[in-house]
């Protein structure tokens, strides 16, 4: 685990998931510095907060999560993006790899360890 806590932005339109993910990540030593409930707010927050990691839900009410990932990772000194969904990664085919995201974790499997593994 990194010596300085990894900073995280959580993007999801369901408040119950954001709350649970925050609790889980904070317990595991991550520093959750922001939450966003849709794609537009996520892109703004990523620019302002400069997190190390964006945990990004695929199904957002406004913009598709993959498009949000492309926008965020297209910026200079972009944060790592990890996509998540209550669906399985097989539901999305190759869209994950084409979006510029580091990887995909199904919501039910979310844990500090699984994030760390993808972040490398």
């Amino acid at each position: 685990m990194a010596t300085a806590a990894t900073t995280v932005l959580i993007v999801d339109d369901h408040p119950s998931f954001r709350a649970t993910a925050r609790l889980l990540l904070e317990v595991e030593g991550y520093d959750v510095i922001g939450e966003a409930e849709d794609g537009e707010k996520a892109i703004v927050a990523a620019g302002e907060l400069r997190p190390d990691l964006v945990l990004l839900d695929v199904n957002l009410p406004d913009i598709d999560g993959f498009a949000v990932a492309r926008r965020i990772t297209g910026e200079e000194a972009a944060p790592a993006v990890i996509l998540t969904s209550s669906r399985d990664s097989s539901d999305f085919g190759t869209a994950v790899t084409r979006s510029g995201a580091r990887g995909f974790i199904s919501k039910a499997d979310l844990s500090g360890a699984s994030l760390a593994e993808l972040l490398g």
Partner: protein
Amino acid sequence: MIPRQVVWGVGAAAVALGATLAVTLFATLDSREEAAAATVALLLVGGSFVVAGLHAWRRRPGNRVGPLMIATGFSWLVAGFVEAREPLPFSIGYVAGALPFAFVVHLLLAYPTGRLRSRLARVVVVAAYVVTTVGSLSVSLFVREVDGLDDQPRNLLLVADEPGLADALETAATLTGVALVLLATGLLARRWLAATPVERRGLAPLLGTGALFLAALAVTLTADQLSGDSLALGILGAIAMLLFLAVPYAYLIGLLGSRASRATAVGELVQRLSEAGSRGSLRDAIAAALGDPELDLVFRRPDRDEWVDAGGRRVSLARAGLGRAITPIARDGETIGAIVHHRGLTEERELLANTAAAAALALDNDRLAAALRARVAELQESRANIVSCGLSERRRLERDLHDGAQQRLVALSLQVNLAADKLHDDPATAATLLDRARDELRHALEELRELARGIHPAILTDHGLDAAVGALAGRSPVPVQVRPLPSERLPSPVEAVAYFVVAESLTNVAKYARARQAEVRVERADGRAIVEVRDDGVGGASVERGTGLRGLADRVEALDGHLNIRSEPGEGTIVRAEIPCASS
């Protein structure tokens, strides 16, 4: 109906006027032969117009054709006094001399309806009256001696003997008269071209004679101004007079002709309709009978307030189109169809009525076929709607599952994992997490229950419509009164559709109606289940707006039922479904 006394009165007045004319002519003319010839000619023309006019007036009291013919006859008799050799009758006859032509121009242009059809026609008629009254009067103020009259009596109206002025006035009046006559002839030609073939059969005699008369009159008036050849003028004048005399007879012949053509048209229709095997479409037969190739035949559907064409396509009678009119076809007091035809045919009321009556007898097959086609189209439409409705319902279910229960279970899974991790090191946090997990689980169960109820309510299957509707009413935020339901169970597809009618309607009441209360009624009558939900809210609901009611209508129609929505703004909403439901 013109009272008999009026007809007799007018006739008596004409006889009295004719007798006065005859007595005056015999008393003032030197030659008895001359007096007899003039009297016979004048009485023949005047009398013919009055008699034909009275006949026309009695037949169509509201139509001006009769009074115009009577007026032509009377004015002709008055003008006849010009033949007298006494100053007073001569002066009266001289001034009135041209008036019959104004009446006859009016008559021709107003035939057969009695109304002038265009602005130009009205201008021509008014100008004709002005020229034949003001024009004649102004000439007679300045003329002492009229050309071509021997031993002319004194003109009582003479103000000043100004032959030059009188000539100029007469020329102006005559040329204006010629122009008006030519315009009137043009208007008659236009009337002819606009007529339907059946109309033409009735119009031909009078319009033909009238146009010939007007042409002869124009030639006579022009020749009178240009030439002094009295023989030629005499012959032209005689031709014009004969044609003038022919006008009332042409009217009577036209009447017989159009009666005969109407009878023929209806006769042909009946015959074509009775040739069942070789029969073309009913529409074609009616179009041929009425002589309107553009004619449409529409049918009223037996089971609802809706019009369809022969192909079963819905049509709106309100948008029949410019220049079209509608004649309903009724049988036993019920309107079963309508003929959409040329507006000109509305004058042929009898023909239309007879055609509609003949069509009513033969309409059944075509009407049932049209209704059947409409039904097939409806079924195809509602089948397609049910498929797409099914797809969108599945999308909605997927969405609801994903956003609802699935999210709860994800959160639950994460909380349980985390709690398991913390169980030894931090039991207090683990306990908090498990509390939250229990809440998530409770919410997830509620959402699943709600979802399952939307798919098919278990209470309906297990306990029937009464209990299910009671449960819907109980959950509604708006107070709902439920009338007692039928005690026996309905067939399950009917029960399900009835349930969804109530469920969707009550959802709409809660969401949009701003109602104080609602009422649910389910009845079984005449082999149908009737489901009615009414509220006292703002109204304004319709099948066309929003997918909820459209989906309901499709479900109801899939069972051969019909959904009817009454929802005037401000008057609440009544959703009423009638579903066929044979006793089981």
